[in-house]
């Protein structure tokens, strides 16, 4: 095991623990921590089995193995980005519905209190 591999494994573990800690403190919901945990598990897997990564690069016809790291990272980043976009879209949709609902309720409430007087 060489230096860079140890650094890689250590940072992956650190990242993994950070996600778990944030979930424990309820800063991240379990639901949304899953994707981060899976990503860090994949990264951890490849930093432990470094040879596998070289083989994979070779099989994919990549001459310079480290460039596959970039490909994988960009890909993971894209997936996470899309996932978050989906979540944000859902939240903004829900938020709009809530605002409208409260507006309608307020109008009804005002009308009811007016009738009381």
């Amino acid at each position, binding site marked *: 095991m060489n230096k860079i591999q140890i650094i890689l494994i250590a940072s992956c573990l650190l990242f993994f623990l950070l996600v*778990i800690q944030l*979930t*424990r403190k309820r800063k991240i*919901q*379990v*639901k949304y*921590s*899953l994707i981060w*945990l899976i990503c860090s598990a994949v990264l951890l897997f490849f930093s432990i089995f470094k040879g596998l990564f070289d083989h994979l690069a070779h099989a994919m016809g990549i001459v310079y193995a480290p460039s596959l790291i970039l490909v994988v990272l960009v890909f993971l980043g894209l997936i996470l980005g899309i996932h978050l976009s989906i979540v944000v879209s859902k939240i903004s949709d*829900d938020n709009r*519905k*809530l605002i409208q*609902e409260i507006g309608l309720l307020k109008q009804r409430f005002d009308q009811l209190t007016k009738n009381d007087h």
Partner: protein
Amino acid sequence: MSEKNQKKGNPPQPRVLVILPAFNEEEALPDVLHRLQTRHPGFDIVVVDDASTDRTREIVSAMNIPVISLPINTGIGGAEQTGFLYAWDHHYDIAIKMDSDGQHDPNDLSRLLAPILEQTADTVIGSRFLSKKGFQTTFYRRIGSRLFRFLNRLFIGQTLTDPTSGFRAYNRQAFGLLKDNYPTDYPEPEMYLFMKNNSLRILEVPVIMKERQGGSSSIFGWKPFYFVLKGIAALIIEYSRGHHE
């Protein structure tokens, strides 16, 4: 009300609320509500309409039963939690959560309530596997139940035969805790660990469940795998949180 009675020294009659989360249950709900009212006229009912697209809300309203209509679908957990908030605000002593699809029998309510009234448990789960009678659920769900039964024994140290059962009774202490902190997704295997971590006593009693009468189950397709994965992660994280004071 109950607090006033206690001050006067009268034997307090516990106020019981039955919470029925409903998502598109116009077919089964009227019969469930009717049987509930005939069998337990002293219990109050609230239906939490989880943004149904059918006539669930109108049907319940027409029966003069309070219905909370959520503008956005929040999932069974979110709907149930809304019921806890309602129960808390309206000073109920006991909250019972029942499915609105007719799976749960109102005749079992007394059995569910007994341990809470005797103060031997804070939460009572109606288990279809203790009685071995009636509808025993589908294949996938049975595997899920088995798995979570094992995990519960591992993490909680108590065997829960039917951890995915949605037929439950809570005392005020229990739903008071859950109103602030409740898993929003179904199912909620980490919930019992969370309750144990908060020193709540959990007990199972046998009930008989029927097959659902209308609508469709909330779990299908690839979802079981996601739920199992999420459930295990949630259990581990709740376990690491440890005992709360």
